[in-house]
């Protein structure tokens, strides 16, 4: 069995498994990740309350699961938040298939202005992209993650990060031609 080391009990490692762990440092995790993750989730969920639920679900999975918290909790949390937030987005799309969404309140021009409207349009276009593409773009241009970190978060090759980013930007420019202006 090339490349495998048996555990002391003779078992074969398969995936990361449950190990005794110290009590997690919740305040540190919260301080380091919570706020940014809520903002990350909000790109998909529309409302902050749902975004916070998604993030709390991710914390719950992290701290209650078998994940080895000392390895890279940030990447794990990002991945879980993206999955959860996109799941919310899919559910909302399903709902939308059955029930027309009520019109969302629009900020008055003097509050949001043209720039805010443009940003909202961009976010809407971003949500319409394929999941991988939108995730790569959000991680790249909101969290400023490196290609390596994005690849780890999404579990894809670094080459895929580049291609998703490139395709995503191309699609955005197709959806909103004026962004090239």
């Amino acid at each position: 069995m090339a490349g495998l080391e048996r555990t002391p009990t003779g078992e074969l490692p398969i995936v990361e498994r449950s190990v005794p762990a110290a009590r997690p440092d919740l305040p540190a995790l919260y301080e380091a990740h919570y706020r940014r993750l809520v903002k990350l989730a909000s790109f998909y969920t529309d409302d902050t309350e749902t975004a916070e639920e998604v993030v709390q679900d991710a914390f719950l999975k992290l701290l209650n699961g078998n994940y080895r918290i000392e390895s890279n909790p940030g990447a794990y949390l990002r991945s879980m938040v993206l999955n959860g937030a996109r799941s919310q987005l899919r559910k909302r799309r399903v709902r939308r298939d059955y029930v027309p969404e009520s019109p969302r309140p629009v900020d008055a021009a003097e509050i949001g202005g043209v720039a805010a409207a443009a940003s909202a349009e961009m976010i809407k276009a971003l949500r319409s992209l394929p999941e991988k593409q939108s995730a790569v773009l959000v991680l790249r241009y909101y969290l400023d993650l490196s290609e390596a970190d994005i690849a780890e978060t999404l579990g894809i090759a670094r080459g895929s990060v580049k291609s998703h980013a490139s395709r995503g930007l191309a699609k955005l420019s197709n959806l909103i031609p004026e962004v090239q202006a």
Partner: protein
Amino acid sequence: MTGRFFGADGTSKDPQLDPFSERRVAERLRSALADHAEQVEPAPNSYLTLSTRLEEAGALAPKPSGRPGGRLLAAAAMTLVALGAGAFVVSQGRTGDLNAVGGDGADNATAVTVPADPTTTIIPSTTTVPAEAPATTPTSEAPVTVALSASVVEKVTLPSAVDAATAAADFVHLLGMPGGARFEGDDGAVAMLPLDQGDQPLARISVAGPEDEVVVTSATSDTVQISDVFVDGDELVVLGQAIVFEAVVEVHLVGADGTRIASTWTSVANCCEDLSPFEARLSTFGVGEGFVVAHGDSAGSGVVSPFSAVPVKFDAGADDTTYTVFRIRPDDSDQGLNLRDLPGTDEGIVLATLPPGETGIKRLPVMPALVGDSYWWRVRTTEGIEGWVHSWFLTPDSSNLSDEDLVRAGQDAIATINSAEFEDVHYANLSLRVPVALGWIGDPLTVRGPQLIDGAFWTEASSWSVPEATYGESEKVISLRSLLDPPDSSDTAPIITAGPSPIYGFEQEWVERYFAGTRAVTIVGSDDDGSELRRSMMLFYEAGPTGPRLVGAVASIFVP
């Protein structure tokens, strides 16, 4: 498949922006994301909310280190808490019976079609089932035709309860509807109310009878109603009307022992204001009694939906199922399923340890014991040893899965895989033939394998660090969809074969151990022109009540 184009050299021909335009779009995007993020701030009490939630789920305690039974119970408890089921406690070791009686219970209950003679078959029809299905019976044996019948009945025997509220809670638990709720009422009807806002009942569960013989009637609600249950062909048809948030009604047939025998879902036209009619069809099996239950989709929120339930008897032919020891977790230290003299792990002694793959285990006609949120079954081994085992670890003997069923399941899996977009296939490392994924479906707590969500396999990227991939380098896989070349109009259809769980390359020990008792579908994807085998996936199925049930997967990449 999306519109992807690849040239002869494999390079993408997707439209690209020139670098200048790309930078411009990227800056606009960055600005828009920043604008949006500025408007979002977590609630001021978010830390308190988070820590309370984690505390309630036990997530802030040190993780358990060892005993599998303890871990299972911890997992079960966590699940229970996560579902908000802490509202009631299910006790063990009760000996009496609780009778569930059909009919409408509450004042404003929906009328349920109950024949004059409650045990009269409503509409008989025919279905085909094997004459007998012991472990060694080949599926090619001639089946016999038996009539499927079903009827709404007065009384279904359930595990006992000591009072009306407990009976209602146990009843709800048996239906698979636990969650944050409280129970209020007296002898007449117990209202199941949400924990936070109590005015709108989730269900009214009628309770009657003397104190020493608590009797529960069918559950009704204002917003999900079952109006009729009858047989059509080989299906149980459930008619009703509902107001459900997600416009989806889930309908189940739940056995009197808590086994979910059949499930389906259907949509309603109007989700949120008026009662809309629905019709659901369930494929049932075996002979027994239980409940038809209908409820809305909680959208994964853990919030209990309003529901209704009616007791039924059904008969779809004899059930001589024997079982195989199957779901032994990889981290079980005892490497087998303990057969105990008492249900649960807290009391009694281990009579025997049944190794994975042990077949021919017969379930005895004894009421299962509810321990925590799990059922323990009284069984007899082929050696005649009788005792209690945790029902999660038994699966029907797999001989009743035909190759045709499995190939069909494989085709469905491919269709499912390909129904969603995935664009990473062409970037995977094809240099070595290595296993890149192994996991349990729907068992995130132990191995965190792929889960079937929204019609596609998804898993948590971080949990798929497979140390042996590429002989030492960790490789993480976010989706099993990436492991097949999805066939489309330009691809050659993949080769699908079915058979017993095979020895599978150098990971044979895993397959033999973890997928014992299952049968496998091997799917081999080929290159676009069919000349080169490139990837394979092995899907493992156990015999489910209504057909093959996917329980695990192994995927490999072939050496080109």
